[in-house]
């Protein structure tokens, strides 16, 4: 009797073959059944063509925090592309391939020919069955899902019901052909294939989800949180992997009275956001590395003019246009230190979909209260990763309105940039009687008028930095997991790599290691005391992140003031717990 199940499935095909949509159907279905899901899609930057698409997801009865590095089941919709995924298939993994392609493969071009001993290869005539079901090849992906359902114990009636729900609103013929393709794949496999592998969902002990659940990815969580936080303006220019945020808001922001503007470029988008922030409206933009680079000056303006702005940067491989559809965490330095002059800005990096929602709500609160740009660092994986989460609780009124207004008596001689102990200068909004002020990118005095002397510049710079000390009390604390007290190894990570670190710690602990993980969704201001305290209890410190130079390690080095071991990967894939375990496995002594 199966109880605990943890299976990593990968669907690999060519752009336009329905690879990603097949993955989405599977992940959303499994999630709806109560499985813990972590998913990751990879696709070419070209809209359509011959590029490789991979839908990778992990379905588990246990809590899972990272995509598995190694695949248990690989479904090849395109042999040439899928061959390159074979290195990630477990030695006892399952390969499902199209056994009746339109023409015989040339030598070494068939994935079945590369299956290693120990692997189980199932040939399914996907194209033939799809043609039979719908008269064309489009249903190959659904035939494959049918085969998967049969081989791994998924009830066909549950899946067909789900497909009907998922495709609701589409033409009946489309729904019918998808279901027919699925059922044909299921029945053919049932009749012709003898199961030889050990993987199954049958008998999985799923804990029924408590409370109301919702399935969403990181981008959806950010968009939803922004609307729940009172977003009034979204300005942006489409770019992978952030475009989905814009797509959602373009459809839904109007319902709550907000406006979505597609600007001519990212400079304009950031300018719109700063302008709206200046006028007292909550505003946001979302972009990726190349767009973020263009926004630099507007973010600097927001720093100097002390204007709230929320900027989402869903990171991809860089520099420049780089690797548009690959995963990387390499914009951290640009986010924290990318401004000219002493240009502090808040930088958050949520760890998962739940955190995306919470951090986005917090970002609006902090930006408005502390009159500062807040950068939210997502990444390609987090943006697209689908999770089944508790329905988020919308922010309360205090969170949705955090501007610090001046007292009436302060308006007698209103100093917009008044020097205060907290660094926060109470802010009027345009139109408020007696609240007029000058705001500029030039250094200014407390009234906002340009002043260039060094003494004033020092006072103002100190004020701007002082806000970052003040806000510390309102920022979420660092999260430590694993062994308490002194440990052999401590793993620091950030953003979406934190799930892998936590999972690695759990696995290492199960093997008796004294090990702990540290994560803080706040990148800047640095949680210095928490970092130091964690460092003190670790004999070896590891910083695990997805960039070449170790940008987080470099950022925290002055705080830690000790040697750290850097796990830096730029494979284009998210961090997996196996990456960390394999790295610490190389330590001697």
């Amino acid at each position, binding site marked *: 009797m199966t109880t605990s199940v943890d299976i990593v499935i990968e669907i690999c095909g060519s752009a336009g073959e329905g690879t990603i949509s097949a993955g989405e159907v599977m992940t959303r279905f499994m999630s709806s059944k109560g499985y813990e899901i972590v998913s990751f899609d990879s696709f070419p930057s070209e809209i359509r063509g011959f590029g490789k698409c991979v839908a990778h997801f992990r379905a588990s009865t246990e809590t899972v925090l990272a995509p598995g590095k190694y695949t248990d089941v690989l479904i090849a919709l395109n042999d040439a592309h899928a061959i390159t995924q074979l290195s990630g298939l477990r030695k006892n993994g399952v390969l499902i*391939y199209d*056994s*009746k*392609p339109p023409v*015989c*493969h*040339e*030598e*070494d*071009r*068939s994935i*079945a*020919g590369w*299956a*290693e*001993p*120990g692997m189980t*290869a199932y*040939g399914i005539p996907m194209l033939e069955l799809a043609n039979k079901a719908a008269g064309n090849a489009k249903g190959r992906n659904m035939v494959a899902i049918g085969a998967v359902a049969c081989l791994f114990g998924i009830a066909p009636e549950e899946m067909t019901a789900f497909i009907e729900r998922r495709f609701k609103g589409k033409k009946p013929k489309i729904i019918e052909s998808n279901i027919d393709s699925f059922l044909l794949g299921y029945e053919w496999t049932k009749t012709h294939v003898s199961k030889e592998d050990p993987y199954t969902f049958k008998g999985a002990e799923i804990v029924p989800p408590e409370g109301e659940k919702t399935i969403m990815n990181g981008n959806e969580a950010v968009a939803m949180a922004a609307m729940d936080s009172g977003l009034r303006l979204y300005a942006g220019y489409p770019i992978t992997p952030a475009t989905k945020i814009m797509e959602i808001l373009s459809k839904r922001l109007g319902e709550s009275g907000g406006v979505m503007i597609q600007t001519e470029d990212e400079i304009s988008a950031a300018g719109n956001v700063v302008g709206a922030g200046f006028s007292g409206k909550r505003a946001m933009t979302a972009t990726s590395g190349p767009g973020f680079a263009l926004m630099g000056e507007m973010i600097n303006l927001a720093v100097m003019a002390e204007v709230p702005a929320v900027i989402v940067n869903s990171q991809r491989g860089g520099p420049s246009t780089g690797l548009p559809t690959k995963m990387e965490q390499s914009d951290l330095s640009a986010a924290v230190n990318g401004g000219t002059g002493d240009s502090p800005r808040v930088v958050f990096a949520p760890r998962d979909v739940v955190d995306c929602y919470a951090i986005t709500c917090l970002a609006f609160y902090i930006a408005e209260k502390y009159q500062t740009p807040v950068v939210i660092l997502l990444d390609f994986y987090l943006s697209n990763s689908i999770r089944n989460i508790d329905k988020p609780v919308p922010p309360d009124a205090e969170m949705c309105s955090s501007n610090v207004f001046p007292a009436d008596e302060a308006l007698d001689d209103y100093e917009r940039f008044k020097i205060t102990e907290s660094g926060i200068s109470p802010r009027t909004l345009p139109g408020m009687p007696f609240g007029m002020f000058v705001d500029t990118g030039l250094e200014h005095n407390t009234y906002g008028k340009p002043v260039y002397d060094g003494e004033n510049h020092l006072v103002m710079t100190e004020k701007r930095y002082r806000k970052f000390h003040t806000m510390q009390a309102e920022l979420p604390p660092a999260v430590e997991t694993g062994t308490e007290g002194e440990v052999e190894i401590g793993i620091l990570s950030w953003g979406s790599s934190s799930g892998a670190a936590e999972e690695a710690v759990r696995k290492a602990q199960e093997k008796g290691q004294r090990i702990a993980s540290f994560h803080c969704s706040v990148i800047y201001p640095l949680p210095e005391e928490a970092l130091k305290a964690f460092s003190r209890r670790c004999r070896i410190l590891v910083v695990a992140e997805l960039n070449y130079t170790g940008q987080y390690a470099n950022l925290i080095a002055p705080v830690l003031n000790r040697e750290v071991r850097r796990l830096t990967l730029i494979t284009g894939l998210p961090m997996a717990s196996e990456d960390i375990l394999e790295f610490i496995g190389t330590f001697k002594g």
Partner: protein
Amino acid sequence: MPKDDHYVIIGNGPAGNSAADTLRKEDPEAKITLISDEKSLYYYKHRVPLYTVGGCEPEDLSIRPYRSYLENRIRLRLGQRVEKVVPAEKLLYLNHMEKVHYTKLILAVGASARRLPNHAGFADHLYCLAGLDDARRVRKAMMAASRLVVLGGDLISMGFAREARKAGKEVVFILYSSLFWPVSLKEEIQQSVTKRLNSLGVKVMSDAEPVTDVRPEGEGYTLTLPDGEEMSTDLVLSFFGSVPNIRFLVGSGINTEKGVLVDHLMRSNQEDVYACGDCAQIYNPELKDYWVSVGWGNAEAQGELTAMNLLGREKVIDYQPKEIFEMDGVTIRTSWWKTFA
């Protein structure tokens, strides 16, 4: 040899592996591929009976790990069946729809279970033991079985009977003397075989063949003997030796009879196509006829020799097969034979 030579061996038994190793040793640069429709790594066939009764695990059967093929740069394609050979184009078609080009081809496909024509009506109810896939099925069936009937036999049947007895199974052996494989049992040898089986606690029936029917009944089977008498059992196993796996060669232009016909240098009638091991029928110029051999040692020797011939080092097969049959303590001495029984 040009560096783009591709030597392809079909068969992952002793002949195929011996040929592959010899080729690698003698030609370090060549591309070598070994294809087998069996999914298992090269394994000890004589341990299969022990495996069927749960006396060892699959890893105990393995002769060499996959790693050793990688280290020797031998591409191992397991679970891949060659559907068609086209010697004129030096091309193979695999069952999963892939073409493989060769410059030289060695057929070392071995043999599969021989089934008797007069058992065809109930063949579905008989378990065989020609390979590891068969063994897995037998092992699964054996777990619930306490009484077995063996029909046959052949080289492996006695080892199986011994292991089954050790595992506490009741075994009845219906001896088909005239169809014993690879040679019919003469009176004297039949007595030795019977004596040996009896000493293992196996009940031998030498006058009960051929069985005329096997039908499922309840959880087991009922056999009908020639005299109409019926016998109940949990499992019926068929051991009648093997026949070369050469059906896929039909239409290829490669000459076959019961096996692949090759000359004294193991060459078939088609250029650059060789055969060795259990699937080959080898021409003996002195006899002016083809002879066959069975057994592990012969297969290994032929694999090596075929590889040498393929490389142009002409080596003529020794007409004295090196093996004498050792069947679980019963020895059958023979030097060569012209055909399978």
